[in-house]
């Protein structure tokens, strides 16, 4: 071992050797696919023909994706899910975290655990449970709802809200835990001082809690933006890809997958992934303008 180390440049090389495994793994599984997908997005490639069949097409794949009606409609669906599932997550998680933090003492861990459970449940289990609950002829939801049975997962008008609900249900607990952890580090003396000054619970929430939570809101909303725009699991497992309604509930990430693995067009699929990246980057930047700038400036 010693001789090997000496051959490689002595003690000076040791730190590099220690960090090398990470960089090697990152290069192989992180950096290379990233760069390769850029190359791929500039080529037309029928995967079943092997690597030799790649043809340079420049930016054509990007243009092709942008002019594709399904790409545009999938972007629309993705934004719709982002708003319908993402916005309520925060609007509910924030006050809920505040309530749990201020009011619940003994039952807190149990309550937080219950909300968090969907987040760690496997997608397959969620798909099974919800497709059973939402079944048109045999489902529990239709059983308790009055009126004609609704085709929850077979009609786009119902399927999109149903999917948005599952996403909301799944990620509410995650945001709750984020906000709760941020609330726990707010100095209790601030609230005591406010109480002495005669501030009520709403004023305390509005003027102490919210401003101090701003960095966490920034982080949580960023995570939701990224997660929403990459949404794949829930619509993919709830709506059968063979059914005619599938394209009507398809997100951009699903379209990308289909482009590659159903239609065999890996070049366009890569171009779509980079277009999606641009959208995510733009929205994250907007979110930074909105919530991020005052991050950490407690005294403002």
């Amino acid at each position, binding site marked *: 071992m010693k001789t090997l180390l000496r051959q490689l440049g002595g003690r000076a090389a040791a730190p590099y050797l220690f960090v090398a495994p990470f960089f090697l793994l990152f290069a192989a599984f992180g950096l290379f696919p990233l760069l390769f997908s850029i190359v791929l997005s500039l080529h037309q490639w029928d*995967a*079943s023909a092997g690597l030799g069949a790649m043809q340079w097409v420049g930016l054509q794949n990007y243009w092709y994706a942008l002019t594709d009606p399904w790409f545009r409609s999938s972007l629309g669906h993705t934004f719709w899910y982002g708003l319908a599932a993402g916005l309520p997550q925060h609007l509910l998680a924030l006050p809920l975290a505040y309530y749990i933090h201020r009011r619940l003492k003994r039952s807190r861990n149990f309550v937080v655990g219950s909300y968090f459970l969907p987040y760690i449940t496997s997608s397959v289990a969620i798909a099974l449970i919800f497709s059973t609950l939402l*079944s048109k*002829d045999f489902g529990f939801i239709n059983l308790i709802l009055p009126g004609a049975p609704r085709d929850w997962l077979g009609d786009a008008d119902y399927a999109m809200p149903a999917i948005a609900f599952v996403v909301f249900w799944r990620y509410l607990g995650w945001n709750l835990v984020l906000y709760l952890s941020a609330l726990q580090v707010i100095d209790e003396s601030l609230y005591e001082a406010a109480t002495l000054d005669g501030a009520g619970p709403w004023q305390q929430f509005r003027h102490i809690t919210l401003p101090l939570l701003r960095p966490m809101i920034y982080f949580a909303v960023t995570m939701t933006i990224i997660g929403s725009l990459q949404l794949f699991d829930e619509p993919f497992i709830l709506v*059968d890809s063979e*059914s*005619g309604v*599938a394209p009507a509930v398809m997100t951009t990430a699903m379209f990308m997958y289909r482009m590659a693995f159903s*239609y065999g*067009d890996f070049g366009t699929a890569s171009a779509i992934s980079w277009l999606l990246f641009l959208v995510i980057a733009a929205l994250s930047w907007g979110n930074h303008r909105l919530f991020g700038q005052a991050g950490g400036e407690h005294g403002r």
Partner: protein
Amino acid sequence: MPKPFHTALAGTLLLLGLWSPLAQALTITVASFPDLDRAARAALPRWRALHPDIEVKIVSRQYADHHTAMTAALATGSGLPDVMALDLRFIGKFAAGRGLSDLGAPPFQAQQLRAQFVAYSWPQGTSPRGEFVAMPADIGPGTLLYRQDLMARAGISEAELTGSWEQFIAAGIKLKAATGAYLLADSTDIRDIVLRTGLAPGEGLYFDSQGRVLVDSPRFVRAFELGRAARRAGIDAHATAWTNDWVAGFRRDKIASQMMGAWLAGHLKNWLAPASAGQWRSTQLPNGVFASYGGSFYAIPAKSEHKQAAWDFIRFMCADAETQLQSLRTLDSFPALKAAQQDALFDEPMPYLGGQRARRLWREIASQVQAVPVHRLDALATDVVRAEYELVVSKGKDIPSALADARAMIEHRVRRP
């Protein structure tokens, strides 16, 4: 290092050296998916007896995973098996590249075997370039499976089910009124079968031999109209095949018939609806239609290093009557090899179908089916047509504009350089 360790190491190396001739016995890898993998496993004891020098390793993945993994393997050229099982619907896509061996060319010369197979199965394994890339193992002659008890209760005769499409839909209305059951799992079942009717020779489902898009032809108009009529009549359960609702529909006597490959009878018997044994019957598809549903094939990747052994294995699975019959017994799959169809097994009554000798009927259907050429964009065209159909039946979009949109969409994709 301690001495005993050296001794052990030397001993192990020596043993490995002694065993190496055995360890080098040829092993071929067969990538497959359920249930087809069971047929291969069941055939292994006979294979070993016939080919003691060739080991067969079966790697099985779930249906979708298998075809995704094979796409990735062909793309990168690594992780390829020697024998690749393929479902019919993936042949068009896989054959578009040059990743599969042409089994019609030397050294395989598969054409010599052609006469032994059901006529329509051979073109199914042929690429648009005319290379024969996939050998048929089992086929799916199309049949109408129906619940005889429910039909009897509604006073519906078999002739009403197999007459015209209008008669079929009328029978569905009668059935719904009398029993509350749906005649169809989904209105798309009618659409898909009418799409497959009346094709000109050489014409594919969505593209003609010149690659022109056909989706606004009268065939599609008729298919959409009949599907919409079935939906409006309220005789379909809105249940896509293989979903929970579909399975529950059979188990709770809510779906009274299904048009599909004859192999569905095996699925019904084994897991879909074992409780309704004896109540199902098989008959011809309505309106005198002959069609086929699915089929399993075997291919050899062009990069396989053991092509001869792989070819031996494929011939053993597909062109050996005894193996084909064993697959039939194991899976209820329908043999593509004509010799296997002459077995006495075909004359046996089938208890699940109330003692019907249905395999004779299926053999007859198989001999009548016409092959439909495949196109590399069939999967895409299928998705587009399905989406437009959905707009027609649930959003009231008119059929000519739905088909015009479908055409524009498919042409947008086809027009790639």
